[in-house]
């Protein structure tokens, strides 16, 4: 008896629960539940970004935390959005690949431009995850060595082996940033 009452309370609390977070500068608020338009407690952040918010730039490959394709920046850190439940994101600030351009001028992030300049992709499926991971890393570590960049990206799967060009692209941003810094 007690258990079922507790169950009911828990369910009601869950029904009332809301989750709110900011994605690319825009605040979104959802009810948690099983109805259309609600966030299911089982939904991953990658699912919510892609299916609910239509932000399909975030890619899902393994859906298991192994490939880095689904990386987004959350409160400054790169996280694997297939390993984060949406209900865990309350109050968070999230940037996806779509949010890296300057919102006012539309200018590309220097990393995005550098990826273009170095053709640092082939099929491009891993690319949003690569850029997002590199961006979060450079924000924290603006002057990394090449080895540190490799380490930072070592969780990103790229089957086309665009790695060599990716390193060049990232290091060229590092070097330019360095010049500015001086």
């Amino acid at each position, binding site marked *: 008896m007690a258990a079922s009452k507790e169950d009911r309370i828990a369910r009601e609390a869950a029904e009332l629960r809301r989750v709110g977070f900011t994605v690319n500068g825009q605040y979104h608020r959802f009810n948690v539940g099983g109805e259309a338009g609600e966030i299911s407690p089982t939904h991953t952040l990658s699912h919510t970004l892609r299916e609910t918010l239509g*932000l399909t730039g975030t890619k899902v*490959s393994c*859906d298991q935390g*192994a490939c880095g394709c689904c990386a987004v920046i959350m409160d400054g850190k790169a996280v694997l959005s297939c390993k984060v439940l949406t209900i865990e994101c309350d109050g968070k600030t999230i940037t996806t690949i779509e949010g890296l351009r300057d919102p006012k001028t539309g200018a590309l992030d220097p990393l995005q431009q550098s990826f273009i300049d170095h053709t640092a992709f*082939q*099929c491009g*499926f891993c690319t949003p995850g690569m850029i997002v991971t590199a961006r979060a890393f450079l924000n924290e570590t603006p002057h990394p060595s090449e080895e540190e960049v490799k380490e930072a990206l070592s969780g990103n799967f790229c089957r086309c*082996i665009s790695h060599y060009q990716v390193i060049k692209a990232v290091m060229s941003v590092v070097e330019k940033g360095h010049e500015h810094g001086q």
Partner: protein
Amino acid sequence: MGNKYRYIGKPMPRRDAEEIVTGAVQYLDDLKFQNLLHGKVLRSPYAHALIKKIDKSKAEVLPGVKAVLTWEDIPDWRGGTPRKVPVLDKKVRYVGDAVALVAATTEEIAEEALDLIEVDYKVLPAALDMDSALKPGAPLVYDEFPGNIIPGGTIVFGPNCLKGVVRGDVDKGFAEADVIAEGAFGYENIPNALPPESVGAVALWEEPNKVTVWSTSQAPYMDKITLFHVFNRQVEVRSIGNHVGGSFGTKIMCWQVQAYAVLLSRATGRPVKCMFTKEEHMAAFTLRVGSRIHARVGMKKDGTLTAIQGTWYVDTGYYSFTTQAQVAVGSGELMIMAQCPNWDLKNLVVATNRNASGSTRGFGGQELKCSFIPLLCLAMGKAGLDPFEVLKKNFVKPGGGYFWRDGNWYQYRGIDYSRAMDKGAEQFGWKEKWKGWLTPTSVNGAKRTGIGVGVHGNADVGEDAAEAYVQLDYNGTATIFLCAAEHGTGQKSNYAKMVAEVLQIPPDRISMTPADSLVTPFEFGPVGSRGTYAIGSAVINAAEDAKRKLFEFAAPKLDADLQDLETADGVVFVKGHPEKSLKWRALGNDRTILGFGRFEPDFTLCNCMMSFVEVEVDTETGKVTLLRVVLATDVGQIIDPQGLEGQLNGCIGSAGIDSAIFEETIINPSSGHILNANLIDYKWRTFAELPAMEHVVLETPIPTHRFHAVGVGEVATSPGPSAVLMAVSNAVGSWLHEYPVTPQRVLKALGKMGNAATGGTR
């Protein structure tokens, strides 16, 4: 490198670059459809079983479920070569075989419905590998294929499709040999090429018998043709291609997932999407074919090959779709690499109760050569010959020849690749590093280094027909109509470059239709490195045709002969008299010009790739580290330097070089389950362990291409694995003959381990 072109060979951002880096590119899973249903597949837990009964009543009443289909509900649609593989059957033939299909309003509901389907199986004994499949009295994968041997040949390659190589007199050849080597050698590792995007399809059925299919396919036009036959030639198929998230040859095999989506759409009247999960992609989709040879090779003291005799056993898994084609192409590729007067090399395509094998970058030739080169190594070892010299000597030269896939003999009329090979050897430092067979290049405590070399070339660069239109518009722009899906090579940008060069207008004035079989003419698909030569030639021909028509329009107006006209930047003018000119604008806005281009297959050319590798072996742990890779090739003319660099770097991915070091699909030998069907347990190379990568790319103009270029994308992976095996053998001082060279195998070769299980796929 004095390049006379305005665009060809110049670095240029890819046309889709900005879309890619901003996440705007749409792969199949990113497309939006109204009213979309989600399809899921119930899969067999047994390698071989009869379905006695299926109860789907509980699944059907689950709210949100719109259709549940089993073999009893569907038309007799079949695929495969020969066309004997039902889309759903009452028998399952591997762990993961499709048992039932569900369409529901969400993926979660579809998955829940799968759990509610009750299946009663009668489990049958299974033939999980070639040895058990070939035993007398072995369980039959198909009643139609006695002995589990699948008939050779494919009608696609014509009535004489190459089924083996028989030529000259092998007895005489062996009599002439100074050394003979013999044995069984395999490249039975069956890794997944593993593009990050899984395979999938969306289908929309329209009554009575029309269907539109969007899919992850790299060859959209061919889907229309394949599905037409699968659907008993009674359904009209329109296929639409998208951006493809990697393929490496595997995504020309999407017919099953397409058929699932089509059946579910037919049953529900709504668009249905079926996307494989990564686990399904790794455990239920096609793998590289397993390859083993039992063979003998005869060689003279100077490295001349005198005879090749034996049987090539090919494990195709539970069915074949491209395997016979791979056998035909692979046999021809071996002839290109091993010019020898006397041959008797048969082959046998064997069905087993595991995933199907199929098209993968390397397409037969990689598999055959990774088995053959270790045999050749034994002969070279006996004769004390330098493998670089022997591989160089035996690769086809102008005037040499080979049988190709259609069974015809082709006289090679391309360039001599020896120069590229020499340059590669020089850059690698082969002469200084080569210390002889089974001798390390250097020893430093427990660490030893060794070197190896491999070579590959194919005549697929000119395979199959291609067609394209190029339309000119009064405003000085052009549109390419081509059924090509971008799968990573940047070829779509290259076609725009080629048209830009022909028409002398900037590439950004050239647009491209989506790949849509309703709009574009026939195109076989970017496979076998044919993108540059075959597809490129069709596109160029279409541009030339449009230009000719433009001149026909302009000539009377300029009072000039056709051959005196030239065009640049949207203006037609008389050569030498630029003042006598006419803008394309003169076409008027009620007229366009449409050029048509076609390429006819041409097997007289081949490409070439030589890989040099250096490895370090830790003799305490058995770990093999790839230190350095040098690829040597000649491309005739570089079209896009950065795209080329990317394709060549790909040699270590896509089931390439690393299939000799750590990549493998591990199957439980008693149940047939794949044990590492996820990206955590399947080993892949990370940024932290990149080898030094160098490319030696020469440009000796290929005579027959408008821009003298030949594609090399596919072949980058192929020579690598055997080179690694050679390098590791040299480093440890004893022969290793199994892929991949796991620490266990290395320690065993070093005599540091007993006869413990060797892992791998046996």
